[in-house]
């Protein structure tokens, strides 16, 4: 980390020895682009499972006791698997394993990751972890129903569904995932630090890379906490140690544990869990910055502030974890500290929102599908971020924690917002993968369905939380304090959720159809400056750069530079090759002010 000046990479020509068989090309491939697609397809596939699970939960909540395939056990199992899959196996894997893998070498001008073999291993290990996770649906007792936070003691006691095989498979799968992530993560940071092409200084990198870079470091340092707690919980469950288990009863029987602390697990879990939020958010912040800048034809406003904010958020994310634990029974004085740090982290986050808005300001905004998703992101993220500011403010958490307000908040900020960015990114970079656009009409339909639909789900859900409806309840039954109208609100939310789910089918159809039949995009269709669009072969082939790797001369945001003919200057265009407007040809470098 000490040497952060621009270090160039050798032009490793030996890498472009092309594999020729199908297996070599698409299965046991070490090409970062193929691995990225493998990661993405796996993540999206398992994400669809989680989407279906959420649909089933919504059916039970919206229309209690109408659907016989959902009983209290399976409801909790759906809750747990939905949460875990979405947060870890979909978002983390797709953002870092998918987009990280695809974009890092292309954006920094490298031929591949520095350790391609390790990269391939990372994917197959990830696939193994997904397989182990899914296999827990098939074992007796089913998957664990302990909630995605897996709090002991209940996670490993018999009062919880899946407390035998289910929880062990879950912990095992997490451990394998962490191994996979560490292999991938070491690759990403090393590649960014050591394999940047000539002229690509750290501060010339697109913000996408900054987001991925810092998020990967967060992941490397935060996932060990989950690993540690998983190992200790496996010991408690299998061997009978008492790391997290105090003297305790289980369904009336005294167990042989003593002295352990359940709160300790919560500290470990959230020491991982909170940075995890930013592991998902930071790459999303980065990618949306680039999408906004490119489609508004304007440089990102306050690039340095954006980088500093990413770093600040990353650093601060390690000292806010206990804001998930205000009512956990931890030392109450911690509340002061964690409330303060939590609200401090809001400041760099707010600055990022301002800078996105100021990037749009006096831009020339093309309302393409990626841009629509990006605008949708700004809206939903503002909404979710502000409710987070409320929850972080320790006393407000007292009535609202463990209610649907929390569910609505984190879905808004960690579900809908990153997914908006993911869609923006997919629509934006799809031509790079396939040389074809995604269908525009279907894309717009997809956007409106997703944007309006998710808002219709989560805005009303906050109000269920105000009412005091607790989360993770299979059914509310009759209560004195919840009016019956709340049930119709719940039904409405469910209908919206089903609609949003169905709209995603349109997206899948669009992807499949456009891969083969979509409109040809041609080279660099969005007229972007960053390197990934400047490859010799388009879409980029094995080895990315043909004979010679590019030389970088500028930052990634030279859009609409005054007096320059085109409204963008790719990063690899040398100053002497820039074409100026005819009448002002005699001007010197117009950017010197």
């Amino acid at each position, binding site marked *: 980390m000490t040497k952060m000046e621009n270090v160039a990479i050798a032009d490793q020509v030996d890498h472009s020895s092309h594999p020729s068989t199908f297996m070599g090309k698409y299965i046991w491939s070490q090409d970062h682009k193929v691995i990225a697609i493998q990661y993405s397809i796996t993540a999206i596939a398992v994400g669809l499972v989680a989407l279906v699970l959420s649909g089933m939960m919504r059916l039970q909540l919206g229309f209690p006791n109408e659907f016989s395939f959902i009983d209290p056990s399976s409801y909790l199992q759906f809750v747990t698997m939905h949460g875990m899959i979405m947060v870890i196996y979909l978002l983390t894997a797709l953002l870092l394993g998918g987009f990280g893998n695809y974009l890092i070498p292309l954006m920094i001008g490298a031929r591949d990751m520095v*350790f391609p073999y390790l990269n391939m291993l990372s994917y197959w290990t990830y696939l193994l972890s997904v397989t182990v996770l899914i296999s827990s649906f098939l074992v007796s007792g089913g998957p664990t129903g302990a909630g995605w936070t897996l709090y002991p003691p209940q996670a490993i006691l018999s009062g919880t569904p899946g407390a035998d095989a289910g929880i062990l498979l879950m912990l095992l799968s997490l451990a394998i995932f962490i191994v996979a992530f560490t292999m991938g993560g070491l690759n990403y940071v090393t590649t960014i630090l050591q394999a940047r092409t000539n002229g690509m200084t750290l*501060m010339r990198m697109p913000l996408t890379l900054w987001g991925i870079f810092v998020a990967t470091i967060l992941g490397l340092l935060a996932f060990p906490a989950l690993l540690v707690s998983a190992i200790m919980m496996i010991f408690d469950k299998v061997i009978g140690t008492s*790391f997290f288990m105090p003297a305790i009863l289980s369904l009336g029987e005294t167990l042989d544990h*003593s002295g352990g602390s359940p709160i300790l697990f919560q500290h470990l879990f959230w020491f991982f869990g909170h940075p995890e939020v930013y592991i998902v958010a930071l790459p999303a912040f980065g990618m949306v910055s680039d999408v906004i800048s490119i489609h508004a034809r304007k440089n990102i406003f306050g690039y*340095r502030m954006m980088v500093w904010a990413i770093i600040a958020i990353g650093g601060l994310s390690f000292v806010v974890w206990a804001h998930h634990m205000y009512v956990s029974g931890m030392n109450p004085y911690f509340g002061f500290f964690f409330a303060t740090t939590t609200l401090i982290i809001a400041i760099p986050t707010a600055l990022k929102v301002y800078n996105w808005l100021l990037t749009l300001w006096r831009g020339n905004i093309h309302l393409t599908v990626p841009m629509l998703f990006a605008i949708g992101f700004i809206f939903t993220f503002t909404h979710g971020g502000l409710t987070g500011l409320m929850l972080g403010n320790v006393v407000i958490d007292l009535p609202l924690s463990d209610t649907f307000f929390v569910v609505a908040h984190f879905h808004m900020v960690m579900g809908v917002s990153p997914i908006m960015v993911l869609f923006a990114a997919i629509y934006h970079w799809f031509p790079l993968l396939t040389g074809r656009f995604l269908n525009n009409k279907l894309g717009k339909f997809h956007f409106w369905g997703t944007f309006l639909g998710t808002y219709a789900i989560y805005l009303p859900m906050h109000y269920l939380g105000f009412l005091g409806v607790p989360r993770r309840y299979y059914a509310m039954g009759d209560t004195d304090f919840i009016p019956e109208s709340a049930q119709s609100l719940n039904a409405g939310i469910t209908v919206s959720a089903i609609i949003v789910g169905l709209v995603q089918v349109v997206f899948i159809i669009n992807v499949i159809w456009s891969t083969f039949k979509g409109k040809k995009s041609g080279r660099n269709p969005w007229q972007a400056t960053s390197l990934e669009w400047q490859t010799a072969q388009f879409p980029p082939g094995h080895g990315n750069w043909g004979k010679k790797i590019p030389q970088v001369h500028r*930052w990634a945001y030279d859009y609409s530079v005054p007096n320059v003919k085109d409204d963008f200057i790719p990063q690899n265009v040398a100053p002497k090759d820039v074409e100026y407007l005819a009448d002002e040809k005699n001007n010197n470098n117009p950017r*010197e002010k």
Partner: protein
Amino acid sequence: MHILKTLRVKPWLPAELEPQTNLPSALLNKEKSASTALQFFLAVITVVFLLFTITFLQRTQSFDFQALSGEPWLPFTNANILWQNSAYLLLASISIILAKKFAEQQSLYAIIISLTATTLFTLLFISGQVQVWQQLNQSGFYITTNPANSYYFLLTGVHALHIVGGVLVFMRCIWLFYFNLSYQQLASRLKLCARYWHYLFFIWLFLFCLLTSDADTFKTIALICGF
């Protein structure tokens, strides 16, 4: 503060110095990359052991914690066998540096001897650790009887796993050398292996001190850390 300077650069302005154009050799770059990756990996391991340690220190203050040394009947009041294991690991760490030196000097027999020594001492360390586990079990210090025992088995186990992982990488390195690695490549790989071994040796020393402390020491540490 190099990093701060880097982060304050205004990248939209023309660079004061156009970045250099001469590319380092492929081999050098590969070595540098591996070194960076190893640094990050060691950071990851540090976090793992750091978190274990913090939970351990907190647990030392619970009522049912019985430290493993201090009183004459406790297993590590006399920790000779652990000292012996430490010596093995130290010798392994030294011999791996020697192997690297010899690889630079390209003397094949010396390399073979020192590599064998490394393997031997490392395996001795692991078997020594297993022996301690057996002794603990025989004298009734089972993994579940006391949190101190649980942590002893857990931490030494995790440490031993890291050593085993290192041995696998090390073996692969020898394997490759047998087929097609140059002396120079071997040396650069052994350099990283050596760093890993040293690191694990220090982790082991740390664990050694931690796990064999007596109750009073824990009390002091906990007081300082504010548990």
